[in-house]
């Protein structure tokens, strides 16, 4: 336990530089993007003078490092400032948008695991069988499937042809849970295809490795049934693999939602950051990046803690 705490401490001390780096990199990247938000803000009534005025009033004429420093200073005081585009506090926007994306990602993750784990186990316990071939082929297909294409097909089929699901938008989970799930179903499904494939592939290969190990062969020789070996030894050992997969998957799903949200016109954080990035709405981009980095880091931390609990040797390394 001592080691675990120390590991958590070490990881926490690494978070600050990672956050600083990530936000700085993004801030720097946006600086390189030509054009600026003053033009958007000036809109139809743009004049050169007006654009210069707006630039000044938003502090966009200050040097890059000054802008970053002032953002950082405010962020340290938990003030993520306001969107240039909508004048809405960034924190409000994030708190408003993230649940939508997280619902989809969460749902996709659950589907990936619920479908992927049994399939992975089935395939691993009968390697080389017809079932195994079918499952692995399906997994290869899932990995190669462009998820936004799948999203399009799902919309065309289940939303437009059959009208079983809504084609667009989202509903807050707190507002109407059943409607929220109905809205999230197709996007989550589009994301989950890749997720299921990933879980199946990783789980299958990890299980096969364990089941073919000397140790398990000895157990089998002692007369233990495959099922009990699987439950008692295989899955416990494989849970570490599964944790890794979950970590990878969440990161990947968060990324994939960007395009899938575009297909379903879901006001999630993906569309938020894409729109903000295109318009150089710094405060929003920075806020969302910060939130994403924090989520990913916290998740990784959680996974590392779980690793040490499942396998104490990891922590000592």
């Amino acid at each position, binding site marked *: 336990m001592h080691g675990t705490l120390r590991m958590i401490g070490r990881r926490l001390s690494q978070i600050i530089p990672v956050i600083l780096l990530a936000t700085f990199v993004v801030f720097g990247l946006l600086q390189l*993007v*030509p*054009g*600026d*938000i003053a*033009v*958007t*803000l*000036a*809109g*139809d*009534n*743009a*004049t*050169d003078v*007006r*654009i210069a005025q707006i630039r000044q*009033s938003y502090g966009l004429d200050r040097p890059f490092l000054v802008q970053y420093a002032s953002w950082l200073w405010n962020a340290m005081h938990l003030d993520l400032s306001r*969107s240039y*585009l*909508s*004048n*809405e506090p960034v924190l*409000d*926007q994030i708190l*408003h948008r993230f649940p939508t994306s997280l619902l989809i990602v969460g749902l996709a993750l659950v589907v990936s695991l619920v479908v992927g784990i049994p399939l992975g186990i089935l395939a691993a316990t009968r390697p080389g069988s017809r079932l195994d071939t079918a499952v692995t082929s399906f997994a290869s297909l899932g990995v190669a499937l462009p998820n936004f294409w799948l999203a399009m097909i799902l*919309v065309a089929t289940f*939303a*437009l042809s059959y*009208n079983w699901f*809504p*084609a*667009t*938008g989202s509903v807050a989970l707190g507002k109407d849970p059943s409607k929220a799930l109905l809205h999230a179903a197709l996007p989550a499904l589009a994301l989950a295809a890749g997720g299921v494939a990933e879980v199946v592939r990783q789980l299958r290969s990890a299980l096969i490795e364990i089941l073919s190990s000397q140790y398990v062969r000895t157990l089998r020789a002692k007369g233990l049934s495959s099922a009990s070996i699987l439950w008692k030894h295989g899955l416990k050992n494989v849970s570490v693999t599964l944790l890794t997969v979950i970590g990878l998957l969440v990161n990947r799903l968060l990324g994939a939602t960007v395009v899938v949200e*575009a*297909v*379903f*016109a879901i*006001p999630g954080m993906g*569309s*938020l950051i894409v*729109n903000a990035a*295109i*318009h*150089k709405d710094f405060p929003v981009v920075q806020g969302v990046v910060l939130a994403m980095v924090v989520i990913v880091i916290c998740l990784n931390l959680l996974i590392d803690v779980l690793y040490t609990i499942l396998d104490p040797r990891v922590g000592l390394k």
Partner: protein
Amino acid sequence: MKSNDQKKVAASMGNWIGLDRRGFLALLGGLPALSGTLSGSALAQGTPHKGGILRVSAPANPSSLDPATGGAGSDHVFLYTMFDTLVAYDYASLQPIPGLAESWSFPDPTTFVLNIRPGVLFHDGTQCDAAAVKFNLDRNRSGERSNIRPDLETVTDVTVSGPNQVTLKLSQPDTALPLILSDRAGMMCSPMAVQERGKDHDRNPVGAGPWKFVSWANAEKIVVTRNEQYWRPGRPYLDGVELSIITEINTGLRSVIAGQNDFIYFLSPQQKQVIDRAKGLTAVSGPTLYCVQLYLNWGRPPFNDVRVRQAMNYAVDREEFNKATMNGLSEPAVLTLPAAHWAHDKALDNAYPYDPDKARRLLAEAGYKDGIDINMIGYTDQRSQQRQEVLIEQYKKAGIRLHFTNGSLAEMSAAFLSERKGDGFLSAWTGRPDPSLTYQLLFGAGAYYNPSRVEAVPEIGPALRATRAAEDIESRKKAFAVLQRLVTDNALVVPLLFQFEMDAHNAKVKGYRPNLLGKPKFEDVYLEG
């Protein structure tokens, strides 16, 4: 083949010209002839009644809900629900009609008097009187955060000349003002709210329009609810409007097909097929001021040569372009104003027939025997890319090779208009209530939408001023004809087509009429069933 096409163009042009505006609208909107007055809409089916909430799919998040601080042309649909304008406009022809101002007059060319309708209340219960109007006009023309100062450039002073009268002093004759006051500049906000809320008024506005602001979930939804104290008797019909922001128009239309929304606007004419195929949806369309066009930078080669600019106009097959990109459902454009507009000069309609050979000859005369490479600026969205693909193919036939550099709207506008990158720009002109603004902003010396910042020919300046000095509509028409001739002969722009407003709604929605500005208003809409 070619002559056939030309015939087709001529025939369709004939159609445009042949119909009078009302008949034209009626044909397109499936509506009976409209009187164009406020009482209007004595519609055939059913009688208007109160109640219900209209769910609208809107294509863009507003830049701000304060009329003075926002900038996007797409904001108006939101603003109209909450703000009434001093001057209103006739849906069909865009001529000015009374709004919050009962009447107005020009006692002399540089004095403009507005008589404010008595007894109108803002949503917060304060009076919309002459003092409030003065507050708004002063804020709009000189406020620090005002984005519409150029609109009221000619106003030098606003005085309250009676409890319900304001008098504007002008630096020069400006007969464009009434229609300017039908736009943002004429939208009245509660002075108390503006003062109390400061910047927050952008997101929490108070006007005197038919509906009151309820909530704005950014890029997601805006909700407004009935203003019980609205000054027009019996209006509005709708208890409220919920505008869901769905930026992808195909997705937005899908939401109406799937029954999540009742109404969608700013569709592409190509989507008519989709609407027609969907059960229970009605397509509504009508011409608008929205002009898809190629901006040209005439300040430097190659477009400083009038022959090259004319070649650009001859080499494009507008009928084909309309067919390919709009399913033939828009109005091919030669001028910057559509045929239905009161200031449109019909004499110029055949100025640039499709003639790639003539384009080649003009280019050869200008010294480009082997054709010419043009660097164009454009946008990345699918519709823009489709237009680019069509234009690249068409211009290729006249030896004009277009090369596009694309980006987001803000980035590319700045690139072409401010940073002077590229020779031309495939974009659009969204139109202004008064046409003099359109011409001023596009062709005036120093205008932002004129990247050269200089007049192409010296006659432009006087012609522009003449359009704002003439007082009655007929003499203004003549002034615009002169200006339009100048712009067309010098080929300062390549107008391609006027996009038709394409809206769709389900069977519940009644009484909706499009307007020439192309920015829907819901004041006459009611729900049935």
